[in-house]
């Protein structure tokens, strides 16, 4: 008899699942706020609103797919299942770009926030010490991941809870003590950007919503994922949307307690977007709230730095696991499956993609004061590219796999029949696809580095993929044979979603019967 394969224990609770996502997405506003204010100025709230609407569509697509296919692969798995191996590889490769940027960008941001307390770490006044510290942080995270030390879900949960409390407090006291509606309108009028700047701002604003993927990655460890993930995903979408819109509107209408040093003669929101402040905008903002700012000036930089560090670490963890998963699906060489004999961690994947992050970091450092924006550009490109494919996969799976039960289904669909099966075409998915495609176009138009480096990353990946598949004798554009039905039954059984498993098996039998009945005609 074959021994049972060890599987991941389902111990992640709703809050655990939420905090997995929040530790990743929650950190985004800490880096995105300053970047967006730097380019979109008085229309930053509009940029966040547009990106937020697209993000809602992205979030709903992820929610539906993660609840229907609660496995660890996330976007890469959905695309591979819906569109085949080749596009699955491209989606996974784009996600890998995001995760490696995640490592560099958030390590950069973490040190940026620390520089509020330790000015010697500032990226503009002390670029060398800043770069060396960020490099050290990335290397240390890689080593910790190889040894297998990772922050626990409980730690992540506590930091997420503290951060939520902190961000809600900043907004509460900010709106209560420092918000002037007439100043908001005035700021929007005097700081309205050009169309080019607004497009640039929108494409950067999307980075404040990247990371929902983490909930999908924890799906295999989540209790009753088909029921819990829709709740945690939608809650995360709403929370981040509330934060992003509130922060941008507050910053535009905020009257700081005292004029911050260096902000003389310029609006407060403009001060937040300067290269000196972009990587610590939330800390500066909170420190300038009357009364509350005295306390916030001390703890917000520290909390921001910890949250960003966790996010950076989730980049190391996520990139290595995505590479491991792609390797198991034969989208990457089996080298990436290699596990350290002592620590039982995917050492090759960790070293390889932490190395990529360090290369990106060096390129960013070479940009001088624009380094943070360079990382933001690439992050936006990776997110837009992978989300585009996820939307297409959502539609393809609705058509190719209508029988898989969807515990959560995006509303507003067009019903039609395809090969005898009732199919619902997702209108919101189509809308989201248009939205994310427009952001991808904005990225390509407005980011002079993103437009070269992003596609270059994809092209290098495709060449690498073709060489590997050719050497192994696998189809270049086709897919390897896989029994998706048996796999889906196993996924639902292991997830403890027995009602959904019964529903799926029932639908399969009904289809078989229908095909048999139709056969003799």
């Amino acid at each position, binding site marked *: 008899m074959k021994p049972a394969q060890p599987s991941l224990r389902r111990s992640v609770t*709703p809050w655990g699942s939420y905090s997995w996502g929040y530790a990743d997405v929650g950190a985004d506003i800490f880096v995105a706020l300053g970047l967006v204010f730097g380019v979109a100025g008085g229309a930053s709230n509009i940029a966040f609103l547009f990106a937020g609407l697209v993000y809602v569509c992205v979030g709903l697509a992820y929610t539906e797919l993660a609840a229907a296919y609660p496995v660890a692969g996330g976007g890469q798995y959905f695309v591979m299942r819906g569109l085949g191996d080749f596009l699955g590889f491209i989606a996974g490769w784009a996600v890998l770009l995001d995760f490696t940027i995640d490592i560099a960008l958030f390590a950069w941001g973490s040190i940026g926030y620390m520089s509020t307390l330790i000015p010697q770490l500032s990226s503009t006044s002390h670029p060398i010490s800043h770069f060396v510290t960020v490099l050290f942080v990335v290397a240390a995270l890689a080593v910790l991941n190889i040894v297998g030390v990772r922050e626990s879900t409980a730690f992540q949960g506590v930091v997420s809870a503290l951060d939520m409390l902190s961000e*809600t407090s900043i*907004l*509460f006291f900010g709106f209560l*003590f420092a918000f002037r509606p007439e100043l908001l309108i005035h700021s929007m009028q005097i700081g309205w950007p050009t169309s080019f700047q607004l497009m640039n701002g929108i494409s950067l604003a999307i980075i404040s919503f990247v990371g929902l993927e983490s909930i999908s990655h924890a799906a295999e460890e989540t209790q009753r994922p088909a029921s819990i993930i829709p709740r*945690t995903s939608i809650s995360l979408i709403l929370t981040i949307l509330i934060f992003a819109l*509130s922060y941008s509107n507050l910053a535009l209408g905020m009257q700081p307690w005292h004029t911050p040093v260096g902000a003389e003669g310029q609006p407060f929101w403009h001060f937040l977007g300067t290269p000196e402040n972009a990587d610590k905008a939330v800390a500066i903002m909170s420190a300038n709230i*009357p009364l509350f700012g005295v306390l916030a000036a001390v703890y917000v930089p520290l909390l921001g730095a910890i949250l960003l560090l966790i996010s950076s670490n989730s980049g190391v963890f996520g990139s290595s696991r995505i590479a491991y998963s792609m390797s198991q699906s034969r989208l990457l060489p089996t080298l990436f499956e290699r596990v350290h004999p002592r620590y039982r961690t995917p050492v090759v994947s960790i070293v390889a993609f932490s190395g990529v992050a360090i290369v990106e970091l060096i390129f960013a450092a070479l940009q001088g004061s624009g380094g943070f924006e360079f990382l933001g550009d690439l992050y936006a490109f990776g997110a837009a590219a992978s989300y585009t494919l996820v939307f297409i996969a959502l539609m393809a799976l609705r058509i190719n796999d209508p029988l898989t039960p969807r515990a959560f289904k995006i509303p507003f669909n067009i019903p039609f029949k395809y090969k005898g099966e009732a199919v619902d075409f997702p209108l919101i998915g189509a809308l989201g696809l248009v939205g994310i495609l427009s952001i991808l176009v904005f990225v390509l138009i407005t980011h002079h580095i993103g437009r070269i480096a992003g596609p270059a990353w994809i092209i290098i990946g495709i060449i690498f993929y073709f060489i590997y598949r050719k050497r192994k004798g696998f189809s270049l554009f086709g897919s390897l044979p896989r029994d998706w039905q048996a796999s889906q039954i196993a996924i639902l059984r292991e997830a403890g979603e*027995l*009602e959904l498993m019964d529903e799926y098996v029932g639908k399969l039998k009904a289809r078989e019967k229908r095909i048999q009945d139709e056969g003799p005609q």
Partner: protein
Amino acid sequence: MIDSSLHVTAVGAVCAVSVVLMIMGTLWWMTHAPRSRAEQVARVAERVLRQMVGSIIVVFSQEIRSEHMMVLAARLARRERADLLAAYVVEVPFTLPATATMETEDRAALDTLAAAEAIAQKHGVSIRAQTIHGRQTSQAVLDLAKREKANLIVMGSYREAKYMGAPLGRAIEQIANGAKCDVLIGVEGQYGSLLRTESLNGKDASE
């Protein structure tokens, strides 16, 4: 006095409160997912258990050995804060008067109840211990349960040497059939080890 640099406006206050309410509402909704079929069954079972263990009687006699079930009852009583009563029933044969002294059996009862008290003490629950003389174990237990308004009777089991239509032992079957509350019986399987409480008795029960 309010600091002159504070800018409290009605719109700002509404925004401030709205942000807090929206975040709280979102998190409340997230943590209140509908229960699955399995969770609903588990919830009902929990409620039933809570109702049935208000007062627990653990039964001992010469033939009913319940030390292992005593541990279970003590854990249950601690968790559910139930009253716990350990009762040792000494059967007085019809050939003797009902008030006859049963020295050996009473001594055995003392040992058993002392062990029951030690178990309860170890689990941090208070216990009442009682030796009861009766003509028939089952009737004595049923009377006691009625008197004490017991919610649960807990006992071990034994198998009769010769099958007489009551595989668990007559007394146990009669208690199970006649009790007005739930009865929890620890039954030894064919190869089970429930009754091998050698560490309590100093010898192997299977001998």
